[in-house]
């Protein structure tokens, strides 16, 4: 039973990290029908920024908590700036082009950013310090859940609640939903659509950066390639849940995380990808639009 609980909590942790990244995919897809292949790289850049800031701040003698908070903040700001710039450089000029063009541009951006970090940093794995301290109150339950897992779960659920609030109740959120549903009509009621798209990229990037910091600190090492791997998983989660749907991305990510956790726990970690993608295939056979995806037949 305890083992089962441990697997569930491990799966939820993993899933909530996927969710942070998957939200960026699904929001961007929802609003401009683009699969942003460079999104994983934004997450990777978040992790690197956090690493650089952590090293500098530690050298300067800041205390642990200050280091975590400032490094995460820096990662979020940096990655958002990258996400914003990538959209302006690589996607905005192609707004009226066929759907394939921005897709190719996205792949190009992904390769560029990977190699840029490879050249600017190194191809080796870099150790990432464990930023999250061991909590006292967790000690009795250590065999079930670790401190980093708790921090990850709390941070991601807070971020998701804030996001839900933003999308549901704010003016910007309403403009985002309207733009996703009918871009030209949104313009006709006075929405500055380019700005809404920029905001979407910034929010998605900020969430991905948060995921980058949390996972890097949990796993303990990073390199220029982590964005690709995490990106594929998060993208799978987004498709699983129904791409374009925000609750779908979160649900898909949690299902994926739990599947992998149970596959690792009861079968073998070699088979976690088999189970993850096997599940994707099954869901796409029986529900092609994803778990919460909308079938896109619209009355005109």
């Amino acid at each position, binding site marked *: 039973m305890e083992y089962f609980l441990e697997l569930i909590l491990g799966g939820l942790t993993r899933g909530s990290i996927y969710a942070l990244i998957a939200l960026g995919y699904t929001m961007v897809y929802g609003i401009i029908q683009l699969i942003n292949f460079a999104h994983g790289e934004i997450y990777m850049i978040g992790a690197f920024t956090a690493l650089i800031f952590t090293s500098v701040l530690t050298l300067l003698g800041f205390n642990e908590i200050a280091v975590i908070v400032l490094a995460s903040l820096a990662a979020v700001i940096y990655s958002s700036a990258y996400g914003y710039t990538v959209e302006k450089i690589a996607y905005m000029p192609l707004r009226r082009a066929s759907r394939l063009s921005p897709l190719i541009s996205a792949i190009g951006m992904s390769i560029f950013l990977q190699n840029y970090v490879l050249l600017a940093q190194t191809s080796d794995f870099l150790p990432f310090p464990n930023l999250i301290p061991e909590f006292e109150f967790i000690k009795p339950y250590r065999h079930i859940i670790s401190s980093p897992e708790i921090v990850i779960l709390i941070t991601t659920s807070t971020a998701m609640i804030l996001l839900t609030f933003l999308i549901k109740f704010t003016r910007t959120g*309403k*403009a985002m*939903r309207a733009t996703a549903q009918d871009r*030209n009509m949104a313009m*006709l*009621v006075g*929405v500055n659509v380019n700005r809404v798209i920029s905001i979407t990229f910034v929010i998605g990037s900020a969430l991905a950066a948060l995921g980058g910091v949390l996972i890097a600190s949990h796993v303990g090492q990073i390199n220029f390639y982590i964005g690709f791997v995490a990106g594929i998983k998060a993208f799978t989660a987004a498709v699983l849940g129904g791409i374009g749907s925000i609750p779908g991305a979160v649900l898909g990510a949690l299902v994926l995380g739990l599947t992998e956790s149970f596959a690792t726990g009861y079968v073998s970690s070699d088979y976690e990808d088999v189970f993850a993608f096997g599940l994707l295939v099954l869901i796409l056979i029986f529900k092609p639009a994803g778990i919460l995806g909308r079938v896109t037949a619209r009355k005109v």
Partner: protein
Amino acid sequence: MLRLKNVNSFYGNIQVLKNLNIEISRGEIITLIGANGAGKTTTLMTISGLVPSRSGEITFMGKTIHNMRPDRIVSLGISQVPEGRRIFPYLTVLENLDMGAFLRTDRKNIKKDMEYIFDLFPILSQRRNQFGGTLSGGERQMLAISRAIMARPVLLLLDEPSLGLAPLIVRQIFEIIKKINIENQTTVFLVEQNANLALKAAHRGYVMENGRITLSDSAENLLSNENVRKAYLGL
């Protein structure tokens, strides 16, 4: 108030609007009639800035607007009810109305305007928490017009409001268009295929053929014009 001078618009390489000249004064209801594919919808989209004009000039209340972003044009007071209603399907009726008032900041008056809308169309009040996509055709048209009114426009552009609606609802909608014109001093530019209906509601009219204005006159004269009667009124 609105003036199109020698406007030329293209879709790719195909010229849709050819040397278009239209003038609308404050308080008028002006209609633009013509067959399918004459360029009526393109005219409205060009005014709203969604289709760029390649040459010519569009001015609105003394400001040049043909190079403006669509959202800036809306902020000057031009709202459009596009063809096919274009209700946001996964926003509720209330949220759709809220989107109409997107650029306004005067919360109190927004509330008042919503009450006014619910007076005009009680059915929308009953459906206020339903998704826009679940409404019937007539309800969608009511919502589309209401959404545009929520912007408190100076100039209201209407594209085929009668399309696909039962005669009773069409009559109701035209009554309301006239009511808005009189009560709120809103200028209306009405594009219609149903020429009879449009000319009866309007003060003046333009006839469009193949992207050109071929005729413009008072609505009365157009209704009795031999060519118009033959081509558009089926008489």
